[in-house]
């Protein structure tokens, strides 16, 4: 792999090359995408959008999106530097999505599940009313269909522009998960870079399985806020997946390439997935 050659091409116009956020190496964008946005050099897991996540998680052709009619609206008339209503429109144009969550049904190695994915590219994956509602609907759909629910998070937390309405989504999603769990439902939360604030402090932390991608920033308060409060340097690796694992806060860290296979393996230990045999051609490492 001609790394030397690549470095020489650093100044190539954008698009063809992507700079790794972990090691600053320039990576051929096509290769980067084929590697699920994991740096081939240092293994840094870059944030990916919801569609890409679904593509690398669901069995090909099985994802059926649900709740597509849910659209956000500016209920508080919130205006900072620009009106929230305009922010929504811009984010919708940019991402082609209604809001920061995509949910639907699919199969993972043949096991039927409900899959919900937060999209960091839509207003930082923030949870407002629609994200909360979609998650609650997804959990209820899993309850009605009696299948596991898998939630991927990448979010800055609750969406300020919806005030306490967004705060209450923390309670709403927990209510739905509690209802589901008490009826035997199984849930898997995958925390990806970054997951903070009201998302970490609600549904993403109360699923049966808490899995993180390597080196993901996961926490309640953002590092900057903490630094401003304590006025000292933060410890090395603070709030990263490995830190959380060491402190006993998560169940495991799984590499993006192995994630889909590991999720399927876990599902085969659950009541809903126990009788699905492992596919003969393992798709996990594909």
């Amino acid at each position, binding site marked *: 792999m001609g790394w030397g050659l690549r470095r020489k091409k650093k100044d190539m116009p954008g698009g063809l090359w992507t700079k790794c956020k972990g090691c600053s190496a320039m990576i051929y964008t096509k290769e980067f995408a084929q590697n699920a946005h994991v740096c081939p050099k240092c293994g840094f897991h870059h944030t990916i959008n919801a569609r890409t996540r679904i593509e690398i998680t669901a069995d090909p052709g099985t994802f059926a999106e*649900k709740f597509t009619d849910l659209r956000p609206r500016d209920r508080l008339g919130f205006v900072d530097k620009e009106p929230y209503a305009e922010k929504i429109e811009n984010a919708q144009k940019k991402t082609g999505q209604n809001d920061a969550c995509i949910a639907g049904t699919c199969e993972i190695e043949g096991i039927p599940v409900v899959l919900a994915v937060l999209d960091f590219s839509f207003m930082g994956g923030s949870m407002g009313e629609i994200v909360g509602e979609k998650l609650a609907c997804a959990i209820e759909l899993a309850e009605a269909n009696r299948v596991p629910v898998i939630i991927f998070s990448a979010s800055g937390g609750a969406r300020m522009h919806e005030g306490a309405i967004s705060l209450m989504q923390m309670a709403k999603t927990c209510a739905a998960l509690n209802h589901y769990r008490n009826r035997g439902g199984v849930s898997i939360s995958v925390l990806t870079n970054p997951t903070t604030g009201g998302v970490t402090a*609600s549904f993403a932390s109360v699923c049966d399985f808490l899995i993180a991608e390597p080196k993901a920033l*996961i926490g*309640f308060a953002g590092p900057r806020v903490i630094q401003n409060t304590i006025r000292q340097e933060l410890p090395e690796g603070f709030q990263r997946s490995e830190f959380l694992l060491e402190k006993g806060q998560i169940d495991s860290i799984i590499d993006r390439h192995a994630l889909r296979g590991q999720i399927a393996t876990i599902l085969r230990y659950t009541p809903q997935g126990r009788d699905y045999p492992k596919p003969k051609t393992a798709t996990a490492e594909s």
Partner: protein
Amino acid sequence: MREHRFHAAMPRKDRKSISGPTALPFKKPIEDVRSRLEELEELAGQTTHDLSEELAFYRDRLERLTQEIYGELTPWNRVQVARHPNRPLTSDFVEHLCADFVELHGDGYYGDDRAILTGLATIYGEKVLLVGHRKGKSTKERLACHFGSAHPEGYRKALRKMRLGERLGLPIVCLVNTPGAYPGVGAEERGQARAIAENIFEMFEIRTQIIVVVIGEGGSGGALGIAVGDHIAMMENSWYSVISPEGCASILWRSADGKEQAAEALKLTAQDMQGLGLVDEILPEPVGGAHADPRTAMNGVGEAIAARIQALRSVPLDELLEARYQKFRRIAQLEQAIQAEAEKAANTGPREVLGDSDESPDLIPEGRKGVPPRRTPGSPRGRRL
């Protein structure tokens, strides 16, 4: 002793100057008239002149001015009142309102977070399990309480005591007053987010009445961590939102100067919160705010708590928990969400009809029917997946 300590925290008559931390700029006209009135009262005691007409004039003016100014407080003014140093805190409620208080310390795992106070209390004859954010009175106390910002052990202590209350059949009263959960290294190490999430999650299955009153500041997840319940009330001059106005301003306006605009934009007052359907009740405060007459303010809160407990006691626990779930599941719900419900029903079709039966749906393989429900016996949630 109790009386003495209580009064020590209240505004003193001789405190004429309104400088320092108790000064609220919008109150200046009121304070001006008050000091003129006090001068006149002093004079009246020393002279034979009849000053009753002047006294009556200033008294009337003071009352009208106070009503006027407090009648049109801006959201930011409300935040200032909510943080007023003489506003009754959880510890004042305990001293003034709670008979036979027994403080219960510690989370049983790590420590005893001073920022959350828990214990057995009797409020207007109702025996309850009390949970409340504690801000502290003296500088030393305030530091020990991190100004009301709790750590994970605080939330875990609250949950542990709430579970105790549940076992004892005691209603739970939560007094919310926090600028937000503590942002620090230790808090993150010990799982701040997870502690809050678990409280929110578990509070949906605690089988006793839960009354929540926001008595000052309802800051974000730090507030919600003890604020899931059957009846949510806010005192008239309290605030409750997803972030503090300063936090919001520093992110969206890139400067703390935007705090007044942020307070406006966030719709964080009790009045706005009720308008959005996010809280059930506003508890009125005396004219001039709770700090002007803490006893009356606290009595009002105590009476309301006792009344709500009595009303909720007649509701069977299964219904109570179902209503609590529905309350937060449907909170501030839009019409379009109902469409999603319809879509979901259409997608799931006959499975919805299966309801409580243990018939195996096609998505669950044979032999998987006997999944035991997680909940304890007697749970209404025994329906199997």
